[in-house]
């Protein structure tokens, strides 16, 4: 139906218009507003109103100069179009029919809305089995994610570093209240019911539970236990600061209580870098009050090394202490006046080495020194006895941990060989989940080059198990073939290096 504009129509002065009413058609107002909008966008169309003929819509039509002339009822559908010419009008009316007939473009299910937070992720879990949150977001944002887990009654492992110590304390207090555990922050190693988190080795299941404020310390101990045929129940990392004065062992105490209540755990070992003495005492007293026997592998000048702690535990358990695997190096001796150069990826292993060597060598300078006055700062090429922890946060900013990325350590090795300073080189190589899939592959050429330049005896503490993806023996054989003396025990490696230097511990 195409008609000329009626006299006096307010806003339509040229072109053609069509005003039609249809009965027996209903569409809701949203649908009709969409139809109107779509048709209005067609070429040559100047005004469109497709709407039910309610009083309000009739008023709108009148304002547009598109009022119907015949009587209407609200159940009728009003289709009013003004176009530039008959062709445009015909096209518009066809478009109205097409739009009215069109189906929704989709009627599928909800698009997947990802969970953005640990809280939302935990809320989506069904079932009431054990669940654990892992947080490795930038440190300044880790707190909120960890707090989500605690609020949901779940334990959380915080890989992130850079979390202020007061936030760590607040999180651990909240976790204690909620009866859950905060592992970390800056916790790189844990094994929960056989699930290895972060840097951890493939070790057999068994009766020993570890509470570890030290990642590589926990790896050393769990690997030696595995080599002695003894498995672990769980390794609960608590973060390197947990036994500091500020944190006061909050997570260590809760982890001890949890292992005490765990059926699979028959013995517990607490491993840490040198702790704050009052905190160490508090942990010892707490451990003494538990039903499960707790032994300390906490490093200090007065306590045994990690290997000795493992040996003590094996004796407690009535097990034989095995000969720890090693690959003797070539018979060589250090040059006169040689010094100890320790290039470590594991902070606890570096500490252990310094604790063993300092009484016989004297001052050892380090970026993580035993005494503040021995601090090397950023001068890693200092002369004399030096032990460097390449895993220290200051050296991992903006790059991967040396257990994954060997670049910095290899540069230091090359610089050492070029320096001409007579030395014995001591290194750790850590295997397991998360570590370099073939550390010997990168190290062997570097060692070969270095040894061709200078007389440089090399001693390696190879931390791992046969079950690790890299395989202890395969790596040991490759390193030994490059002229290194290889030991499964860092304490044994250190003692061997000291022997080469003509000192003995």
């Amino acid at each position, binding site marked *: 139906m195409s008609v000329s504009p009626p006299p006096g129509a307010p806003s339509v002065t040229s072109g053609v218009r069509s005003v039609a009413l249809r009965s027996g058609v209903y569409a809701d107002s949203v649908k009709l507003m969409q139809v109107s909008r779509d048709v209005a966008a067609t070429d040559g169309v100047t005004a469109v109103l497709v709407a039910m003929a309610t009083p309000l819509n009739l008023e709108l039509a009148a304002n547009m100069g598109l009022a119907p002339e015949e009587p209407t009822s609200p159940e009728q559908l009003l289709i009013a179009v003004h176009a530039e010419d008959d062709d445009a009008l015909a096209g518009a009316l066809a478009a109205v029919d097409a739009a009215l007939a069109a189906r929704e473009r989709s009627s599928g299910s909800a698009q997947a809305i990802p969970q953005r937070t640990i809280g939302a992720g935990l809320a989506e879990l069904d079932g009431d089995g054990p669940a654990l949150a892992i947080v490795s977001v930038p440190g300044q*944002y880790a707190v909120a994610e960890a707090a989500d887990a605690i609020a949901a009654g779940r334990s959380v492992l915080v890989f992130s570093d850079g979390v202020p110590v007061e936030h760590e304390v607040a999180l651990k207090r909240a976790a204690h209240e909620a009866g859950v555990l905060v592992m970390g922050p800056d916790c790189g190693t844990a094994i929960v019911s056989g699930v290895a988190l972060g840097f951890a080795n493939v070790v057999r299941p068994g009766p020993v539970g570890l509470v570890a404020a030290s990642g590589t310390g926990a790896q050393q101990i769990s690997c030696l236990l595995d080599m002695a045929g003894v498995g672990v129940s769980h390794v609960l990392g608590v973060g390197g600061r947990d036994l500091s004065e500020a944190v006061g062992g909050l997570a260590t105490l809760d982890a001890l209580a949890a292992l005490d209540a765990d059926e699979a755990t028959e013995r517990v070992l607490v491993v840490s870098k040198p702790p704050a003495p009052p905190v160490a005492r508090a942990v010892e007293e707490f451990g003494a009050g538990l039903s499960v026997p707790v032994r300390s592998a906490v490093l200090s000048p007065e306590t045994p090394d990690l290997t000795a702690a493992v040996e003590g535990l094996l004796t407690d358990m009535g097990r034989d202490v095995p000969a720890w695997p090693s690959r003797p190096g070539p018979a060589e001796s250090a040059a006169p006046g040689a010094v100890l150069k320790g290039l470590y990826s594991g902070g606890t292993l570096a500490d252990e080495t310094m604790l063993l060597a300092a009484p016989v060598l004297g001052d050892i300078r380090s970026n993580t020194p035993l005494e503040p006055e021995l601090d090397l700062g950023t001068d890693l090429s200092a002369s004399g006895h030096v032990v460097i922890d390449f895993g220290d946060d200051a050296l991992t900013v903006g790059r991967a941990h040396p257990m994954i990325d060997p670049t910095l350590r290899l540069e230091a090795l090359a610089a050492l060989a070029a320096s001409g300073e007579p030395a014995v080189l001591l290194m750790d190589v850590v295997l397991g989940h998360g570590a370099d899939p073939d550390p010997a592959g990168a190290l062997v050429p570097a060692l070969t080059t270095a040894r061709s330049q200078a007389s440089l005896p090399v001693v390696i503490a190879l931390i791992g198990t046969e079950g690790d993806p890299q395989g202890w023996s395969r790596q040991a054989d490759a390193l030994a073939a490059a002229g290194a003396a290889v030991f499964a025990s860092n304490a044994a490696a250190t003692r061997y290096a000291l022997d080469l230097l003509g000192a003995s511990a």
Partner: protein
Amino acid sequence: MTLGGLLSAPPTIVAAGVDVFSDALRAQGADVHDVDWRPPGFGDPADLAALALDPRRNAANRVAVERILAAGSQLVDVRPAREVIGLPDRTLLHSGPPLTWETASGPMRGALIGACLFEGWATDVEDAERILAAGEIALDPCHHHRTVGPMAGVTSPSMWLWCLKDPVHGGQAFCNLNEGLGKVLRMGAFNEEVQARLAWMRSVLGPILQKAVRGSIDAGNDPLDVKSVLAQMLQMGDEGHNRNRAGSLMTLRELSPSIVAVEGVPSADIAAVLTFIGGNEHFFLNLGMPTAKLAMDAARDVPGSTMVTVLSRNGTEFGIRTAGTGDRWFTGPANTPVGLFLGDYGPDDANPDIGDSAIMEAYGVGGFSMAAAPAIVRFVGGSVPDALATTERMYQVTLAENPAMAIPIMGFRGSPTGIDVLKVARTGWLPQINTGMAGRIAGTGQVGAGLVQPPQECFEKALAALAEETRSA
């Protein structure tokens, strides 16, 4: 201590952050769920941490949410604003945070002009503009008087108000009567047609509704349970903000017998009242809003809570309040809704966001229950999956699911309820609001309807204030 059973079996792991750790776990055959973590949408990291670590927060938010969920809503009376909230002469309530005549938008000015004419304080439009500009009329937000008003929300002393009561906490809330669609005062229209309708509402509709509501209660019937009507609407394709069809019809069904039973008025007036209600699809909105207001007011003043108690706009600014910061407003410039337009109106005709009706979203219906009314998402060209996705997103910015407000298509999951400022910041997802659109120019009326979000600025300010409060607590 058993760490919630953590050591009893290999755990299911939920991970946020770098995926190398998740990959290593997957390689071991562990059950790992990665969340799609992003840096927070806004907020000083130190503020976010302070709030995340506030030991009061979880318990305070639980208290706030429990009060919302427990609140009820009964229609107990209909009375003029002058009587019920003591609104004095020459005072007008308006929607949103505080504003002045100078800062008022077109539709707000139109409604204020219309109310001055309606109350007889001005002889014509110019006169009304003069007394408003001279500050002779006091302006105050509805929210400062336990009242909510849709769109401009302008409420004058002789307008009739729905009077609702929360039988659980004893709170009261009020809202004016809905005028219908098109050229109406709340959309900023003020012409003779608007004035005539308001006069009829004052002299016929209000008194009849009062007699009907009182008569029913006096006859021993329970007051109308408005919360229950709202709950039923969600089962019938309404979301309670932009779509109130089922709710309006149910309300008509509930009120009709007592309206018809009103004595001493001409039967033509009874018929006119029933016709008016039956012809107004948004009639229920003015009952839904005070129902939400009752619940949100019950959650006011919970120290340590990061929950939003008010979302509201005055056509110029958007304002929010939180349970943990008392009656402070946190404001930012209102956005303009996006949607579909009536007749030949277009985007240029639309005013920025206006009205107290976003109290529905604060309560967890409206845009938050978009999945219950997929028709609404089509305002912005969306589809049914988009409607479901909107509600899914809102679950992640809220503290609870309201079991009374079940959404059928979500498997009768409760509506996402109680907006958490901290979650909004962490996800970067702003609340979704469904709304009408008023014409930008005073006197125009409604030009369309659509979807809008609050400006982020409101939440930034609220987050900073909550963090400051936390540090001084």
